[in-house]
């Protein structure tokens, strides 16, 4: 069903925009909710994975005979137990289970299933792997140098004309932009150019990956798993195991956080392979160490950004080079990083070049607005510096150059209704921006952009005979989306919120759905829910027409009732949804609405963040003392959870800016694979996070909804860098701004006489 553009976006709502309790709430506060590791099956075995201790090594031989002979071991698998792949699945398979080479510390090389964790652990120690250790590289700049250790012999950089003749670790070059930057810089009165570096960070979800797999000799399989996309898991696993998609039923458990990190597979194909070999259910739960070493953190990066302005504060040209390493296989988010880098600005001349680089690190996975926070850190830092050089207020400078409806974006399309300037104007009016800065502190801000996605979506809405309805969606609920879906269904049908029960259906009960990612769920699944409700309403009206004996087009649906309408419709008492449902058995059987849809028109989103920071100049330690998020939500369906997304993204950004980083030793091994030394923010590190929801309706959605989940992590890195730089009196260009780094910068600044 295409988007019905004739029906205007409502200006007022009955239940959308209210804050009811979430339908899965009581399960989650009583401990009943079942997450990935909480499932059990008869005869279940424990699966464990053996991982490479080397950053880069050729696997000469794996001897599993001793492990197999150990009492209690029911299966041992290696790469040979998977179906050989070419094309899209080849890298995924190689990451799930190493083939010829181990490409990073933590790379899976074999796995066992045993009757207990203790036996499984012992069995792993009995697997003998003959490694030939190879030179490794973990830094993006090092990996790009000629002569760097090569991860893949045949990797020829794509996107370069003419194609290079020699292989390298650069898998692809991207370029976006328009105009002529060289000409633009000539018109500039002031030009700032700087180099930046950021370290890799992890999504840091509290729930380690977990799954329970059963694969029988006839190819029939069941998988219980915490994932952001069970249809994706089904497709990939069926491919890697060589079984039919229809035979694999995947059920998404409650999911304990993902932020993009659960949009791919790691352990699921392994559990299935073990189960097939043992012919028993196999459960694999990752340890926290495995989560850090062997899932998908985001890129580390190195960047150069150059922006020129005229004396009156108009940007004449913006140019950037973004180099992201994405781990051992192609596919860092540098494309999104380069596309989004300058997306906040209305630019005549702009160029963003991205290099996608491989390193001996775990293959990156999506992390909330993948790639965008990194490039925004560099760009918004330079913007801040320019505003200072111009003597302009940071917000005024941005308003002067901000993208607005009709602006040709730096990555191509022309913007429709967007709210960047509104977030900036609201920021300027906000009590936080107007309050006096406390002694010893500094205040700054930054903007951020994210595309938002739509994608393939399918929902079913069944009307029950008691007037309630059941809504089956195929996008795992990662942060309260069942509440939002119920609100939208109730709004459309005209029934109470409590009368809708939303569930996440398994892959055998519903058509294909894309992953819960790209801030797409409330937008795309929400739109599909509204359409399914409209489909059901059409049928409800048909039944009413049948009851009244009038034509179908003489019935309208208003506020939960079918009513006769038009000159010849006659006069009948309106029929409620419950009335029609009750008699559905006599009027043609069950009533349901469906949508199968590929959603477009997601509507980009923008945010402005304000931050106050204090820096202890003797130790380099930063304290965030006040924080405010202003973001365009299009329409906030459940405002509490919209605020929650704003706050959560901001705090992940605070962690990224200040203390989170992957630390590698000279041996290429990860040194901080735990929550003790991978330092995500704790409650005492933070102030309250103020929020301001701005609603500029997205015309691509019947209620005006935009995705809200990701944009909130884009501005904090730069906002905090700008505030810390102001407080410390020296420009910080490397993340994280951990105390040793800040102290060093302060001391070097003092030596240079800052």
């Amino acid at each position: 069903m295409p988007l019905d553009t004739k029906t205007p976006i409502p200006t007022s709502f009955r239940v959308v925009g209210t804050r009811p309790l979430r339908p899965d709430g009581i399960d989650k506060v009583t401990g009943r909710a079942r997450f990935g590791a909480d499932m059990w099956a008869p005869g279940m075995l424990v699966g464990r994975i053996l991982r490479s201790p080397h950053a880069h090594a050729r696997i000469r031989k794996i001897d599993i005979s001793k492990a197999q002979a150990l009492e209690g071991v029911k299966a041992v698998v290696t790469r040979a137990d998977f179906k050989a792949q070419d094309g899209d699945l080849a890298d995924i398979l190689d990451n799930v289970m190493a083939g010829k080479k181990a490409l990073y510390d933590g790379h899976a090389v074999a796995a066992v299933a045993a009757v207990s964790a203790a036996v499984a652990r012992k069995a792993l120690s009995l697997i003998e792997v003959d490694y030939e250790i190879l030179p490794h590289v973990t830094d993006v700049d090092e990996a790009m140098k000629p002569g760097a250790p090569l991860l893949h012999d045949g990797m020829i950089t794509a996107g370069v004309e003419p194609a290079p003749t020699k292989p390298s670790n650069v898998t692809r070059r991207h370029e976006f932009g328009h105009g002529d930057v060289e000409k633009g810089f000539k018109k500039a009165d002031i030009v700032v150019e700087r180099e930046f570096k950021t370290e890799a960070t992890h999504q840091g979800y509290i729930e380690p990956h977990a799954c329970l797999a059963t694969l029988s000799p006839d190819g029939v399989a069941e998988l219980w798993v915490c994932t952001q996309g069970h249809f994706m898991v089904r497709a990939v696993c069926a491919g890697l195991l060589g079984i039919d998609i229809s035979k694999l039923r995947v059920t998404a458990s409650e999911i304990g956080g993902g932020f993009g990190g659960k949009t791919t597979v790691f352990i699921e194909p392994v559990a299935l392979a073990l189960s097939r070999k043992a012919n028993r259910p196999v459960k694999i739960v990752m340890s926290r160490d495995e989560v850090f070493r062997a899932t998908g953190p985001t890129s580390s990066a190195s960047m150069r950004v150059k922006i020129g302005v005229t004396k009156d504060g108009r940007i004449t040209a913006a140019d950037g080079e973004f180099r992201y390493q994405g781990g051992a296989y192609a596919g860092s988010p540098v494309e999104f990083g380069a596309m989004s880098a300058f997306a906040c600005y209305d630019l005549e001349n702009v160029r963003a070049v991205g290099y996608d680089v491989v390193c001996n690190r775990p293959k990156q996975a999506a992390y909330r607005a993948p790639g965008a926070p990194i490039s925004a850190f560099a760009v918004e830092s330079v913007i801040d510096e320019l505003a200072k050089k111009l003597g302009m207020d940071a917000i005024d400078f941005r308003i002067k150059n901000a993208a607005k409806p009709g602006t040709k974006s730096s990555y191509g399309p022309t913007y429709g209704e967007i709210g960047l300037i509104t977030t900036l104007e609201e920021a300027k009016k906000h009590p936080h921006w107007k309050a006096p800065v406390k002694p010893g502190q500094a205040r700054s801000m930054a903007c951020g952009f994210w595309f938002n996605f739509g994608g393939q979506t399918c929902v079913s809405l069944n009307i029950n005979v008691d007037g309630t309805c059941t809504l089956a969606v195929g996008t795992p609920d990662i942060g309260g989306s069942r509440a939002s879906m119920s609100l939208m269904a109730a709004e459309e049908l005209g029934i109470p919120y409590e009368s809708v029960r939303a569930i996440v259906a398994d892959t055998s009960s519903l058509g294909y759905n894309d992953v819960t990612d790209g801030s797409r769920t409330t937008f795309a699944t929400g739109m599909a829910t509204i359409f399914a409700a409209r489909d059901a309403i059409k049928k409800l009206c048909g039944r009413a027409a049948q009851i009244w004996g009038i034509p179908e087009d003489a019935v309208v649906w208003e506020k939960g009732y079918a009513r006769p309408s038009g000159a010849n419709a006659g006069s009948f008492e309106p029929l409620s949804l419950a009335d029609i449902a009750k008699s559905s058995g006599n009027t043609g059987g069950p009533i349901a609405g469906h949508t199968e849809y590929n959603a477009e028109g997601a509507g980009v989103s923008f945010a402005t963040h304000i931050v106050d920071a204090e820096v202890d100049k003797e130790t380099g330690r930063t304290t965030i003392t006040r924080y405010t998020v202003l973001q365009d939500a299009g329409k906030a369906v459940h405002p509490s959870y919209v605020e929650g997304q704003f706050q959560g993204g901001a705090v992940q950004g605070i962690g990224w800016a200040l203390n989170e980083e992957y630390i590698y030793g000279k041996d290429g091994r990860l040194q901080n694979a735990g929550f003790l030394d991978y330092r995500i923010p704790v409650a005492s590190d933070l102030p309250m996070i103020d929020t301001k929801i701005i609603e500029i309706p997205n015309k691509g959605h019947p209620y005006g909804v935009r995705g809200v989940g990701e944009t909130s992590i884009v501005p904090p890195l730069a906002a905090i860098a700008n505030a810390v730089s102001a407080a410390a009196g020296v420009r910080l260009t490397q993340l994280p701004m951990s105390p040793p780094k800040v102290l060093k910068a302060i001391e070097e600044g003092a030596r240079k006489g800052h």
Partner: protein
Amino acid sequence: MSQVHVTAKINGDTTEYLCEPDETLLDVLRNRLGLTGAKEGCGTGDCGACSVTLDGRLVCSCLVLGAEANGREVRTIEGMAHGETLHPLQRKFLEHAALQCGICTPGFLVAAKALLDKNPDPSETEIRYWLAGNLCRCTGYDKIVRAVQDAAAEMRKG
């Protein structure tokens, strides 16, 4: 390795179990007793998702041996509500949307209850420091802190 026989009071009920000497209380609760409300987020005492009380004292059950619980009293998230009635903290977490994914929620609730049992009127700073051992990656803690403040206020009124 022979198993250890343990008799403990769990959520008020006398419970017997056998466990390996090196098995943690968390593993016993989850794998032997079916009490999966306590979660394992790290296994090293750094995330608080496995929080329970042991003789009234807040602990990480991943850092307690199952064998140590012999003769002691353990309380978990499963023992927090009374029948149909949620504990005020549970209710306030829902009302304030103090959870998104919900994996850390049982640990936060057990820890917050231990705080309010000891200090019925904690300041925001006291709440934040008390809960520093419970990691939440979704909420940024704002709504959690507000929920605890609101529950404390309600409980003080009686």
